[in-house]
């Protein structure tokens, strides 16, 4: 074997899982943090999948038109906020169900993104840069794995911030009370609907950014198959993480790493039963749920107003 680039063999598997955890997890992390904010306020937005796709398209289009991927991020955030606002307003109408509106937005956002995104599939838009955190190593594979997009550390920092803010700021308290008990919030004189609308908009912004990560960094282009359900899985991960921002990060890393397992094993030469390896993230998540839940503990931390988890 030539020495130009050392093959890693079996060592490649843990490296790929590690690198995959960082690369693949970012959209899961951003979307689930956003959904965490929304759900803390007592609403659920299943439409984040649609917002993510719409954000991905808008980001790519904006980056292409302006030549700056940073404008792409703004576009994705703007689109996300607009869709979040739409969800927030519609769900504030009497008798209108948040889960159903979310499914409607999933469809609408996806359809709109496909409709408007036709002419952006082929051109190449400027991508977001990455931070070479692997500058210290001579190993090219590891150095590449440590090329990290700024959205990843930003997401991790945001998780720590949210963790702190939910407990220690008046804003965090307000969201939590509105989400836990509308009666208590009313008694305290909080305006429930505006809080929920803003929380849903925050969720939309983060979902849009999650989409921008997909189209502007990894894999780094726009097409109609770009999202393989990241938005909807992220909503599930929030429940998995029991509404705790830091656990959302853990869940996203776990999911991203497990998703890299299938390709990594094949690259090392194991390819029979590859469909089963590819299902690893789902099986693993389910097994952890089975192991860690019990009828009494599972809903710890669930916002009391959340329709999805009403016991």
């Amino acid at each position, binding site marked *: 074997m030539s020495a130009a680039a050392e093959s890693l063999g079996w060592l490649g598997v843990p490296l790929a899982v590690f690198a995959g955890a960082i690369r693949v997890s970012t959209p899961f992390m951003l979307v689930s943090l956003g959904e965490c904010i929304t759900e803390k306020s007592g609403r659920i937005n299943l439409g984040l999948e649609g917002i993510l796709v719409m954000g991905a398209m808008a980001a790519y289009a904006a980056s292409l038109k302006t030549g700056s991927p940073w404008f792409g991020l703004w576009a994705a955030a703007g689109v996300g906020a607009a869709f979040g606002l739409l969800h927030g307003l519609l769900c504030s109408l009497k*008798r209108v*169900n948040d889960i159903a509106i979310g499914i*409607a*937005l999933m*469809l609408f956002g996806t359809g709109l993104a496909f409709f408007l995104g036709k002419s952006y599939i082929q051109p190449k838009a400027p991508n977001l840069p990455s931070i070479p955190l692997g500058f210290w190593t001579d190993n090219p594979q590891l150095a590449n794995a440590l090329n990290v997009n700024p959205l990843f550390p930003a997401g991790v920092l945001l998780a720590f911030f949210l963790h702190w803010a939910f407990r220690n700021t008046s804003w965090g308290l307000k969201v939590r009370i509105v989400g836990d008990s*509308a009666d208590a919030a009313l008694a305290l004189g909080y305006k429930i609907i505006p809080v929920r609308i803003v929380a849903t908009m925050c969720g939309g912004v983060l979902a849009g950014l999650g989409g921008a990560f997909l189209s502007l960094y990894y894999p780094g282009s726009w097409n109609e198959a770009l999202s393989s359900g990241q938005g909807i899985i992220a909503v599930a991960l929030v429940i998995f993480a029991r509404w705790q921002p830091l656990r959302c990060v853990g869940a996203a890393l776990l999911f991203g790493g497990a998703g890299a397992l299938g390709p990594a094993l094949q690259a090392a030469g194991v390819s029979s039963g590859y*469909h089963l390896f590819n299902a690893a993230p789902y099986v693993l998540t389910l097994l952890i*749920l089975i192991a860690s839940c019990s009828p009494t503990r599972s809903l710890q931390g669930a916002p009391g107003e959340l329709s999805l988890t009403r016991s």
Partner: protein
Amino acid sequence: MNSTLERILVPLGAVAVSLLLFALFVALAGYPPLDVFALLYKGGFGSSFSWNNSLQRAAPLILTGLAVAIPARAGLVIIGGEGAMVLGGLAAAIVGVWGPVHIPLVAQIIMLLSGALVGAIWIGLCGWMRHARGINETISSLLMAYIGIALLNHFVEGPLKDPNSLNKPSTPPIPDANMLGLTPGFDVHMGLLIGVVVALIAWAVLRFTTLGFALKVVGGNPRAAQLAGLRVGRWIIGACAAGGAAAGLSGAVEVAAVHGAANASLISGYGNAGILIAFMARHNPLAIIPVAVLIGGIGAAGGMLQRRLDMPDATVIVLQGMAFIAILASEAVMGSPWRRIAQRLWGIEPATTPVAPAPVTVLAKSSTLEAA
């Protein structure tokens, strides 16, 4: 009567509003809105061919809609019907190919029942996980859907592959004689009749029997249900299994009426479309039929828009999204203001019962609070 009328007229008004919005959208995109509407009608419902086209597209959606609607009666949000559907199809193919019986009618019944059984077990497991381990059924059914699809792919590309299926890895074909035929009177496969009959049965059971009532209690207030002596766990698992059976049955119909074998074409998104349909029909099994026909019709018409106006396929997804949002939002105008207007104009007495009754109990909670 008044309330029934309202429950039909308001959603129809919502569809009209969404069509206006859609007209604006297509006009902005540079297409002629009037032509678009003419083609939508022509393609979806303008001729007997169009009707058959729409009904054929609607047929599988009735069952996958029920897969969401039945558990919803017990307050459960199941979004993993796709997994139960493909595994139901796989089960039907296995018994259809390797089963011992080759009398067509018997073989068909066995195929359909095995599909339903496997679907029932798959989603029933989500019910069990909810009951025994407290795992949220929405997330578990979603994960199970991905796992089910992986299993289907694994089996049709691996152990169950027919070497003659070449570039479309499939199980061996079931005998031609055992394939389901057409729904009498229609150019639509038997899935339409099966779907309609199952929907009617589900509606009757949920509406008129104590079974339906008990499910409603479990969905409305599990603690009260427990106090009333209902074994909540069994009801939860049962509701999930019933929904899963509908999804599995739809997969079996796909195999026995369309594909003649199990392969990746079973992963068609019908299970996901069922979520949309159930929510649009407010989990009412009877309403699922017209909603499925509407969605099927929009699908059929979408083809016509593509062929005649060169519009992209996504056009009709946008229309479906708009219609869905409008119908859901129209829920808000139902009830009091209309009543009051009607009362003033024609002296109709306001009904004493609340307008949006039980089906969507899950949803009632947050919205009533917001109304306060």
